[in-house]
């Protein structure tokens, strides 16, 4: 029996390749993602060691919440105390800041998409000069080798650098490697600007203070003793940590980043596997159908049902073993390719060995074997039921599971899936449970739909095929009937495509809703005339531009009011849980932004003692106007704030709002996220001409002062709306491109199924050719059959995606999505694209069909 199974596989090489290809792709992606993230992690761990080497102990202020850079500065005085502690060889104060943006030779600010723009005080154990010399005077800076070479920065030239509070001209004194003397290890496009210490303190807004003190322990001294002595000397307001702790912190920072990145990739890999599973299952079903007569003969010759079903399972297992092996091998290659792609895309990663961990292999085997064996269980069970008569009868058909049962099972799965999905989206679960229940729900809905869809696949295929038949005559008619003839096959082939398109459509609906919400907010609750923000700043709330700009814009004659805004992600703590915080000028009230205040008033708030709350947290905290909310800041301060106003529109204000004055008191981040300005005498009631004239003159005046700030962008309302929409669009396109991967696999599936179907219909094709179907007509009929199946899958997918998208849009907090909007145009385009993709997928099978020898085809069994 085993020999027969093996023979079966080897005899039909093409079929074998088709079957294995999808499993190989699934395994390949999983392995590629694991290997890539493991390799990156290993190199980052090594990098963390390199960076922190040479620093024995670090003195800094403790931090419970907020960002690393939110630590309270260590004053000069503490450094002086520390240096006097016995066993301390030397103390180096260090300064670091974000949003230190270098502009290149032509004045373009160098702003990577995502990675930070960091400013440092010169630090000899991390920076290794390769050209020029380290910055020594207040007008010099140095930068890392990658930033320099990518942007053609030349030692000796003068460049503009923008810092947290202002911007200045500096001469590039030198270029350095970060982390390693021989190779620049700055990460993922981060730009670095280093200054001599006192210049850094001044420019990076750390007057007479440091972010932290690096302590070298004297040789011979016991580091533990020194650490204790230092801790006692600097007092309770500061902490002393060892090199080990710093390395681990850096590693865990990197890890957090890698995990997000790896999880996103893994999600895509799993989607790929899921889609592959559909195709594999489909392939096994078809192959079994082709083998019914042969298996019947075996049964007639005395093989038991169990033996027959075991032979089917055995074939699947062999496909699994083979594909897993090939998949692991190709996955290693994929990891390398991905790495080079990331590098080519400006996302530089430290070099290091490719890491293949045991866990990766176990996972790959589980995926590869699991998917194939699971997919073949149903076909194997059906194989057991094949009667010996199958060998004798002419038109052999597998017994079909009854439609009634199919509908029952499918409906149950779909309903269960939606329940799980609803639970995940609306029950307020934790992230892990949410993801689990949502993805399980999604999987159930997909499978359930595929189980159900044969019930209507024939009718729908006929409807889709109707215009094709009209258009192409007999080939069209054949395409239509072939798509309709085996609803199960059509359904499971379409199923793979359905998944991909459902995900893309869902992303489309959510994206469109976000856009709509944004535009509505802009139209209804934003009255400001101008928006000033960082060039290239996406949705990254840590970007910012010099605070000085606010002052300068407010001095422009035409400008009547300027309001600055900050945002802190997870930066305050209320009742023990961390929250985002948004800031504004209370005195401006609702002049520029109206969050729809329902109680109290913004202007009545005391800048240093009040807070504004969205109605939801107000309700959760059980507070109303005049009550006190206790807020903890990153600097450790715990402050009772009186609720001054409660509002309902959180699209811009988020949930918690404090005044800029309070922000500046507790945060080390003077740079602004954005600012708004309004023009004297401007109003929407003015005649349009007058409006335009006012806008033109004021724009010129404002740009007059902001132009010198390379990193700052001034936009009027229309421009602001456009640029924000463009940003959302490019984000959506990125997601869509990733999801296209699933579509790609689905297309392989279509090609695969079609090739098998063509093979199965050899005689029929021979007959058609004999009675005069030309090769062209034959190719055309195969291609349009694929198009019909694709459109069927696309319609299911877009339908499901629409439902998912609307559910997700409703579930997403009002901050991001308030109104649900559907991009009908894009959805229609997806269906058309699916049809075209189907036509393309059919090219090879169609060619194969056309190449068949008519006589051999007629004579074939």
């Amino acid at each position, binding site marked *: 029996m085993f020999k027969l199974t093996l023979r079966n596989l080897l005899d039909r090489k093409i079929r074998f390749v088709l079957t294995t290809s999808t499993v190989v792709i699934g395994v390949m992606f999983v392995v590629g993602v694991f290997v890539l993230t493991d390799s990156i992690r290993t190199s980052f761990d090594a990098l963390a060691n390199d960076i922190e080497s040479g620093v024995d102990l670090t003195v800094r202020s403790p931090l419970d919440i907020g960002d690393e850079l939110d630590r309270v500065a260590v004053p000069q005085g503490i450094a002086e105390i520390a240096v006097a502690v016995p066993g301390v060889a030397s103390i180096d104060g260090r300064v670091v800041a974000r949003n230190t943006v270098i502009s290149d030779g032509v004045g373009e600010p160098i702003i990577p998409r995502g990675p930070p723009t960091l400013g440092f005080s010169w630090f000899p154990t991390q920076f290794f000069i390769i050209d020029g010399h380290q910055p020594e005077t207040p007008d010099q800076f140095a930068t890392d080798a990658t930033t320099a070479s990518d942007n053609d920065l030349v030692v000796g030239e003068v460049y503009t650098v923008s810092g947290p509070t202002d911007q200045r001209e500096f001469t590039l004194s030198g270029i350095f490697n970060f982390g390693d003397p021989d190779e620049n290890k700055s990460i993922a496009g981060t730009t670095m600007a280093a200054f001599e210490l006192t210049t850094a303190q001044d420019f990076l807004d750390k007057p007479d203070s440091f972010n932290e003190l690096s302590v070298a322990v004297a040789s011979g001294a016991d580091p533990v003793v020194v650490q204790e002595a230092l801790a006692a000397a600097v007092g309770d307001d500061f902490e002393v940590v060892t090199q080990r702790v710093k390395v681990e912190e850096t590693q865990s920072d990197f890890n957090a980043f890698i995990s997000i990145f790896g999880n996103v990739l893994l999600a895509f890999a799993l989607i790929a596997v899921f889609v592959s599973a559909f195709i594999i299952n489909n392939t096994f079903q078809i192959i079994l159908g082709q083998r019914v007569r042969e298996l019947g003969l075996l049964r007639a010759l005395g093989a038991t049902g169990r033996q027959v079903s075991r032979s089917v399972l055995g074939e699947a297992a062999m496909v699994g073993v083979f594909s897993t092996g090939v998949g692991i091998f190709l996955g290693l290659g994929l990891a390398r390719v991905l790495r080079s792609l990331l590098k080519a895309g400006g996302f530089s990663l430290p070099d290091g060995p490719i890491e293949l961990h045991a866990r990766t292999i176990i996972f790959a085997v589980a995926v590869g074997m699991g998917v194939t064996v699971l997919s073949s269980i149903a076909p194997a069970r059906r194989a057991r039921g094949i009667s010996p008569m199958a060998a004798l009868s002419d038109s052999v058909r597998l017994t079909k599971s009854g439609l009634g049962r199919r509908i029952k099972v499918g409906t149950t799965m779909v309903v269960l899936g939606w329940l799980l999905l609803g639970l995940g989206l609306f029950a307020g679960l934790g992230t892990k449970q949410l993801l689990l229940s949502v993805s399980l729900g999604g999987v159930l809905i997909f499978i359930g739909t595929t189980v159900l869809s044969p019930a209507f696949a024939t009718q729908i295929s006929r409807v889709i095929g109707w215009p094709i038949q009209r258009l192409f005559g007999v080939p069209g008619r054949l395409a239509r009937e072939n798509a309709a003839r085996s609803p199960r096959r059509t359904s499971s082939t379409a199923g793979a495509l359905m998944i991909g398109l459902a995900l893309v459509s869902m992303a489309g609906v959510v994206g469109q809703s976000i856009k709509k919400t944004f535009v509505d907010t802009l139209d209804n609750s934003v009255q400001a005339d101008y928006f000033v923000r960082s060039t290239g700043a996406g949705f990254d709330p840590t970007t910012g531009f010099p605070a000085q700009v606010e002052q300068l814009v407010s001095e422009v004659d035409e400008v009547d009011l300027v309001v600055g805004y900050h945002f802190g992600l997870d930066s305050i703590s209320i009742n023990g849980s961390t929250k985002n915080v948004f800031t504004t000028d209370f005195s401006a009230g609702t002049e520029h932004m109206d969050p729809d205040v329902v109680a109290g008033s913004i202007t009545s708030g005391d800048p240093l003692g009040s807070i504004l709350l969205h109605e939801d947290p107000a309700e959760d905290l059980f507070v109303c106007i005049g009550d006190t909310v206790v807020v903890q800041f990153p600097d450790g301060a715990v402050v009772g704030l009186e609720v001054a106003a409660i509002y309902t529109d959180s699209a811009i204000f988020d949930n918690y709002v404090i005044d800029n004055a309070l922000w500046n008191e507790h945060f080390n981040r003077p740079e602004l996220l954005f600012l708004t300005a309004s023009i004297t005498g401007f109003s929407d009631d003015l005649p349009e001409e007058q409006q335009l004239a006012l806008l033109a003159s004021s724009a010129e005046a404002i740009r007059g002062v902001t132009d010198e700030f390379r990193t700052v962008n001034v936009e009027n309302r229309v421009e602001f709306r456009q640029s924000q929409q463009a940003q959302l669009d490019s984000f959506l396109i990125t997601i869509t491109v990733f999801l296209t991967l699933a579509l790609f696999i689905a297309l392989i599936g279509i090609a695969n199924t079609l090739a098998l179907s063509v093979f199965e219909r050899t005689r029929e094709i021979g007959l*058609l050719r004999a*009675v005069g179907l*030309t090769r062209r007509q034959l190719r055309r009929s195969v291609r349009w059959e694929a198009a019909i199946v694709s459109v069927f899958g696309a319609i299911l997918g877009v339908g499901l995606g629409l439902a998912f998208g609307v559910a997700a849009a409703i579930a997403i907090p009002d901050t991001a999505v308030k109104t649900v909007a559907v991009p009908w145009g894009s959805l229609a385009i997806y269906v058309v694209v699916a049809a075209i993709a189907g036509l393309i997928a059919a090219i090879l099978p169609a060619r194969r069909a056309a190449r068949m020898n008519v006589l051999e085809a007629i004579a074939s069994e």
Partner: protein
Amino acid sequence: MTLLTTHLPASETIAARAIAVDKFYGKGETEVRALNGIDVEFEQGRFTAIMGPSGSGKSTLMHCLAGLDRITNGSIVIGGTDLTSLSERQLTLLRRDRIGFVFQAFNLVPTLSALENITLPMDLAGVDPDQEWLDTVIDTVGLADRLSHRPGELSGGQQQRVAVARALASRPELIFADEPTGNLDSTSGAEMLDFMRRAVREMDQTIVMVTHDPVAASYSDRVVFLADGRIVDDLADPTPDSVLDAMKRLGD
């Protein structure tokens, strides 16, 4: 059988002609000479049977005459067209427009209804069937009430009748049938043969049929015998007995 013997062909035009045709399969050691210097003509308006032992080259000759296969040497002329000079596409169109087929089994496209199968060659050509002729054919086949059925819903005999109707529907110059009754019981087989004979008599069609069965052959106007790729006998106005006699002679 008296009807048979008294029949005279309406005309003596040649529908198909094979001139010094060789068809070899394989090369060297494994070379098979399936057809070996065949010279034969098939008159228009006649029903010709091809007989011969298994492996004698009957199917091969038919395939070559019908433009389904290429020959090694010689030439084949269908109604004035030399097939050896035609491209693959031209051959396909020739089959579609000028030749009809009936195979032993699996004659119909399972996704199309009986009527659609019948009109398939014309639909492929994009020409409208001659409705009157079509009705005549369908009436003669006796399937008027089964036209909307799919092949799966028809019996084997009915399927073969639909296949003959398809072969006739476009009034081809020539119809080839390879053991068309091979899969049928004797009653359905007789019906089929009778039908084919009427098509030749009453509708002036030309049919070349391959068969093993002397009774089937006796429905025809002429029997050509093949052995080892050569024509070894040619019998006019056959009866089952004369065919059997000829077969016995050849067997010796």
